[in-house]
């Protein structure tokens, strides 16, 4: 499989430079030069942050408002820095919308939580014959495997449930961490590094003995996983999980520090997770998924949105976007916002909205994609896509693949040998990449 690899240079590559360059440059200068370059390169590696709104967010109240329809509900649209309007309860995001676009013509047919989750993550509808990888696993497979300097997993999922790596294998399964960034069992506790090294030397003796016992590849595969786990335990990159190292202003900006103190319905967590995602991306992780739940709003939708979900969402997206921009990373990091589906335009008797997959919005930006656009549109009541084209999750992920430099003609093979097209053969959305 040939790949255009956008990843940073490998350690070996640097060592080569070091050897070649040492003769011509004063050593100290050279090393600081290399270090600066390394940090810069790592920062400029391509990555994707998926904001996963589990439960199914009402995009009609966020990205595609219908103020003139009976389905419009309580919220009004406001102008943004981009060429589109969004909800009045997203004022901070409105100020960065020149960097972000909204695909308003999603039509995805799966309106069950489990099936929708699977479909939006993998681009494939669930079938009993094969388990498809979530797109994060695809990125781990295509980009993560090439990043030799990366000591932590290439697909990290913060605060959410797992998704399957499917036929790509367990190496590419999402590495789950909770919102506090604590990694279970990664702490040496009272054992200490010296003891760990003694243990690992003893382990090496037993493992190598078995590896050389003519029993196939499994023994080595086991050792490989342990090497990775130990690297992870010892890695400086683990610091990326420690968001408390950030300045208070930064933390506050991400979590939308409530003016009167007190938390906003767990919303502060979303911002903190996004901050962790930025740190992970900086460390070289190519795919981070951040879970933000509580969108299954069958009742009392406007009150919940206004007081809990949207303030946290607004603060998080705005802070992440400006932060990435300030750090010069926004052109390399794709942001995607979606849930398993959206919610009915019709408002039910409990002032809620039910499951709806027929016409809804996904937000996407960064990574060099065009910002400030609304792609496609829905009709005046929001009940169907009215533009000529509607989009599937495969089209969204194909757009992401394009931005990440993953060739769209890649075909993976399932365990039983069936060819599987990248993003189910979706095509990158022209308006965004154009």
């Amino acid at each position, binding site marked *: 499989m040939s790949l255009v690899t956008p990843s940073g240079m490998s350690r070996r590559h640097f060592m080569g430079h070091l050897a070649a360059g040492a003769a011509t440059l004063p050593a100290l200068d050279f090393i600081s030069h290399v270090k600066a370059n390394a940090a810069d390169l790592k920062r400029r590696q391509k990555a994707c942050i998926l904001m996963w709104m589990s439960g199914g967010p009402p995009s009609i109240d966020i990205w595609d408002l219908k103020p003139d329809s009976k389905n419009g509900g309580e919220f009004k649209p406001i102008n943004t820095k981009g060429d589109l309007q969004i909800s009045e309860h997203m004022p901070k995001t409105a100020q960065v919308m020149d960097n972000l676009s909204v695909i308003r013509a999603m039509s995805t047919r799966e309106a069950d939580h489990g099936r929708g989750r699977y479909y939006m993550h993998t681009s494939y509808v669930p079938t*009993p*014959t094969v388990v498809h990888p979530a797109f994060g696993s695809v990125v781990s497979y295509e980009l993560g495997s090439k990043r030799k300097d990366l000591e932590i997993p290439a697909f990290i999922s913060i605060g959410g449930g797992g998704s399957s790596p499917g036929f790509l294998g367990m190496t590419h399964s999402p590495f789950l961490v909770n919102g506090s960034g604590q990694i279970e*069992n990664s702490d040496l506790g009272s054992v200490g590094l010296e003891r760990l090294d003694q243990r690992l030397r*003893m*382990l090496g003796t037993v493992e190598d*003995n078995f590896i050389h016992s*003519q029993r*196939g590849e499994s023994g080595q*595969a086991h050792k490989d996983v342990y090497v990775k786990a130990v690297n*992870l335990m010892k890695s400086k990159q683990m610091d990326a999980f420690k968001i408390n190292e950030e300045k208070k202003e930064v933390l506050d900006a991400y979590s939308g520090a409530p003016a009167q103190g007190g938390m906003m319905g767990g919303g502060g967590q979303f911002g903190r997770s996004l901050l962790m995602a930025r740190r992970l991306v900086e460390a070289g992780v190519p795919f981070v998924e951040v879970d933000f739940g509580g969108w299954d709003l069958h009742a009392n939708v406007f009150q919940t949105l206004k007081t809990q979900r949207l303030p946290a969402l607004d603060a998080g997206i705005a802070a992440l976007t400006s932060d990435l921009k300030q750090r010069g990373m926004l052109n390399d990091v794709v942001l995607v916002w979606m849930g398993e589906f959206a919610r009915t335009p019709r408002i039910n008797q409990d002032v809620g909205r039910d499951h709806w997959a027929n016409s809804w919005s996904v937000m996407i930006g960064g990574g060099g994609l065009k910002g400030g656009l609304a792609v496609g549109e829905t009709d005046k009541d929001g009940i169907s896509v009215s533009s000529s084209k509607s989009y599937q999750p495969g089209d969204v992920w194909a757009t992401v693949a394009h931005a990440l430099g993953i060739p769209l003609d890649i075909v993976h093979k399932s365990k039983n040998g069936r060819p599987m097209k990248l993003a189910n053969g979706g095509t990158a959305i022209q308006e965004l990449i154009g």
Partner: protein
Amino acid sequence: MVLGMTKMNFTGWLGLQTRFCRPTIVSAGLVVAAALALPGVNVGASETFTTGSSDVIIQEINNQIRQTWKDNEVDPSPVADDAEWMRRVYLDIVGHIPAVEDVEKFLGDKDKAKRTKLIERLLDDPGYVRNWTTIWTNLCIGQQTPRRVSREGMQKFFREAFGKNRPWKDVVSDLVTAEGHYEENGATNFLLAQMQDQDDGAQMTAKTTRLFMGMQVQCTQCHDHPFNDWKQDQFWQFNSFFRQTAKVDHRRFDQKTGRMVDDFSEIVEKNFSGPVYFEKRSGLMKVAYPAYFGTEVNPDESTDRRKELARLMTVGERPMIAMAYINRLWAHFFGFGFTNPIDDISTHIPVTHPALFDRLSEEFVKSGYDCKQAMRWIANSEPYNLTSRTTKKNARDNPAIGEAALFTHVYVKPMSAEQLYDSLIIATNAHKSGRSGWEQAESQRHAWLQKFVQAFGTDDGGESSSFDGTIPQALMMMNGPLVQDAVSVKAGSHLHDLLTGKGSENQKIQRLYMTSLGRMPTRPELGAAQKFLNNSHDPLTVYQDLFWALLNSNEFIINH
């Protein structure tokens, strides 16, 4: 019909390889040779291997496997030494490694029939029932219990089935025809687990045929099978057997919370007659009536369709349920089955040993579907008693890369999560410490398994022969409380007893090896451990760390 499926249509299969690539690459000569091997031909084994059992079926296995060695010009690996074989047969039959006392007793036993006697003992061990209950519960409902399914109910059903060694056809029949409360009739949980979606019984159809009949008809839900004879109508013919099935999810009022909460679920019969409708790819709607490989069933309301299906599933000399069971059992012991994958027995998948596969299936039926008897045949056979090490003369026998299995050595397989947990408990003597009651022990086990399986990601029940562990699992083994406890030197722990007991340094090192790996250390291993002891001012930590290393090793977790 059934016969036609087991014999491979060779030219047809070859032709299809080019159209649609599967990873299974089989050397052509090999399969032809295997197909020509006649049952009962003695290959003239110079020295006849025996575990001490002299069943004619065991001879048959040995002869036919030897014939394919000869035909393919490979030599078998040597017979496994007692230590290697014992650990394997424990893991395969009772689901955990042997305790150190049992290892010592077995290695010291001079009885020539000790292997067959051990097999008998293990088949009567309570661990047998527990192990096979775990395996079939996972296969039927997955490692993570789906909504509205009772794991306890499913386990209870299998505990009784394996405890009484019920005929396999009765077990399958109970599962397929189950009705009623999910705890009163635990068999219902198999179908309940396949009723998660409103899918007109598609999942029930696919799972039943795959698990119990070794047929992967699921692709034919939507289109004709690309490379065998199965047509889309056949899927829906099978499916129509399940259309009288419905479930009722009961709810009840909870006094404490004042809310309605989930109560039990049950399977009930619903009125259904006539055909089912399905859509061809062309958009054309078609109908299918209940039919089992061409045997039509009265589609009236008077027919209990699932009962009819259960009856038809056992018709003939060699029904698919017998073949599917034998193939799964063979793969359980050897690491690979007669087909790869094991649950796809059809014309487009080559069979490694067609005559032997047929014969074993027929004998299984004749034995009255006796699950233990089938295990006896396999565990007492020569190939199962060989080492898992390859030699120069059989290194190419490597089904992991798609070659047809020749069974010149036993293929290694990673432990299941349950085998790993139960083995850790044995190795650390936690089962004898009596620190916690049965219920507490069960809930600890359950909690650990949940975490480990979650860290593993998949609950497809798919069998993997290669090690496919994850970083969280490795972390859990290295730093998790279970292993930390195991290497602690609390009073009553195995390590404590060992270190405070009598014996030289060498004896202590040997005992750690015997406890965890069921074998003595090699000379270099002994030397390495001694070096650590000599260089340390704290021998206690050296023993602890050695035990840690042994429990974390590939040799521990890979069933070889």
